């Protein structure tokens, strides 16, 4: 359609959603502008209740927005929800397979829902079973699956019709590291086939390792957006984290006005310093603390992670807020 840049698969402007419950209004999504490009893995990162699922449900036509506009897979969300449904796949936080039905039956039925004739749906189901290594489980009831098998089946259900855009809501939450790695692998395979993947996650390392670009959402608003590298670079320099015996506040006051410190804050009972160059800052910090007779307990120097990005943008640590 004219107007939309061809490479934008998702384009939202001022997308909002208000929930009313017991007379109180909750603005779960408070004006979100997103641009997701064709073929990328886009990560939507935020703590519990940030508005990730609500945004995803709006973009996949499950929930009517309270305001704003969105184009998804080349179609207008408000006027062409039917067309969007044909082009996207959606794997919800709870999955979507019935425990009482076998995985194969679910996959075939899903294909039929997308209009495939029975034979084609069966063929596609068999393909996906091989691809997702569900051979041993496919003809058992879903209720008997392991967590990882269940999640792979859920993803398979979203892939039956080979959508150009796939939404994954927390695809690896609750999985063991091995199953998590398997899901990552599947996501990368989809990416290689040219599918655009929009996923939500609590995990910074996941966003960092998997995503081409990331948006961080907090209280319904985007607080940062870019490639993981860009976001980290925006912080620039290095991060020094240390604790001292006794009062952290004194240590903070001591170092925060030094030239080499760009920003300093107290977080989780330790001092976080954003510095230009860690190797210059470290000896200086040690000298200062020594001079004030403050005993250093722990000290860490690291490149900024997405956690630091989150901390800088929201003033809170992601790990601390995520349940």
């Amino acid at each position: 359609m004219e107007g939309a840049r061809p490479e934008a698969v998702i384009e939202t402007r001022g997308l909002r959603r208000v929930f009313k419950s017991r007379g109180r209004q909750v603005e779960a999504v408070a004006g979100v502008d997103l641009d997701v490009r064709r073929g990328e893995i886009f990560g939507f990162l935020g703590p519990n209740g940030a508005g990730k699922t609500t945004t995803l449900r709006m973009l996949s036509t499950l929930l009517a927005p309270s305001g704003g506009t969105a184009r998804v897979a080349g179609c207008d969300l408000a006027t062409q929800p039917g067309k969007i449904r044909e082009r996207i796949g959606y794997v919800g936080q709870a999955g979507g397979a019935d425990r009482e039905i076998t995985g194969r039956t679910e996959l075939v039925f899903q294909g039929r829902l997308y209009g495939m004739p029975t034979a084609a749906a069966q063929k596609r189901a068999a393909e996906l079973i091989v691809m997702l290594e569900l051979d041993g489980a496919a003809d058992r009831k879903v209720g008997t699956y392991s967590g990882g098998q269940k999640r792979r089946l859920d993803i398979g259900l979203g892939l039956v019709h080979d959508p150009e855009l796939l939404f994954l809501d927390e695809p690896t939450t609750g999985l063991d590291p091995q199953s998590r790695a398997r899901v990552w692998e599947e996501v990368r395979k989809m990416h290689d086939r040219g599918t655009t993947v929009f996923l939500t996650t609590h995990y910074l390392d996941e966003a960092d390792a998997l995503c081409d670009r990331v948006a961080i959402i907090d209280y319904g608003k985007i607080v940062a957006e870019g490639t993981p590298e860009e976001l980290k670079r925006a912080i620039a320099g290095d991060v020094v984290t240390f604790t001292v015996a006794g009062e952290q506040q004194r240590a903070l006051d001591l170092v925060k006005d030094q030239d080499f410190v760009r920003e300093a804050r107290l977080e989780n009972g330790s001092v976080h310093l954003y510095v230009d160059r860690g190797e210059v800052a470290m000896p200086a910090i040690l000298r200062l603390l020594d001079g004030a007779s403050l005993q250093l307990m722990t000290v860490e120097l690291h490149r900024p992670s997405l956690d630091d990005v989150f901390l800088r943008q929201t003033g809170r640590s992601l790990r601390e807020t995520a349940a």
Partner: protein
Amino acid sequence: MKLIRDTWLVFGRYFGLFIHNPVWVALGVLQPVLYLVLFAPLLRPIAAMRGFPPGGAYNVFVPGLLVQLGMFGAAGVGFSLIAELRMGVIERLRVTPVSRVALLFGRALRDMFSIVLQSLILILIALPFGLSIHPLGIVVVLALIGLIGLLTASIGYAVALAVKSEDSYAPIVFTSALPILLLSGVLLPMSIAPQWLQNIAAINPLLYAVDAARHVFNDNLGDPSVLKGVVILVVLSVVAVVIGARQFGRAVA
């Protein structure tokens, strides 16, 4: 065309769930048998009482049993839907291009089917005990009971989608079913009720269904109340299906 295909597809899914569950199938057959075995012995002495309406005990009570079966057989359908809501099945179905009407209608048809089957079993078992009914009467009565099932199931699904929890669903459905049943004349004829109660009962669609079923069992197929009962149920069922489908589609457009 798509609506018919999708409805058939959804019906097939839920019919398969039903047929592959031996407990359900066994209970489905057992229920009408229980109704008769536990209830019929009570009929004999009552039928012998003075002033008992003509037509034999079974012809008087079986219509009421069938109406109850139609209603309570479908009143619990919301529980399975709430379980599916929790598993994310409903969201998954709603994201596909499948027709929203089919999502409701296909499932409700399955419920209707099982109720019609149970009713048929009940009628067939009652026949050797002295129930007498014209074959065409069986067809009409099954249509009536099937419609009651379709109507009740559609309402049940709409309520389940609205409240989303068993804790709210159970009291809502069963509390509202009780007055509807009491005021339908299933248990005792409404003609013996005081006028004010009759006035309230007059807005109860089930009253007309019971009335129609009674006439069918009295070999009065041509009675206007039969057609009236069917028309009322058809109209209400259509309304209920549309409302239920709306609930399924309560997303964008």
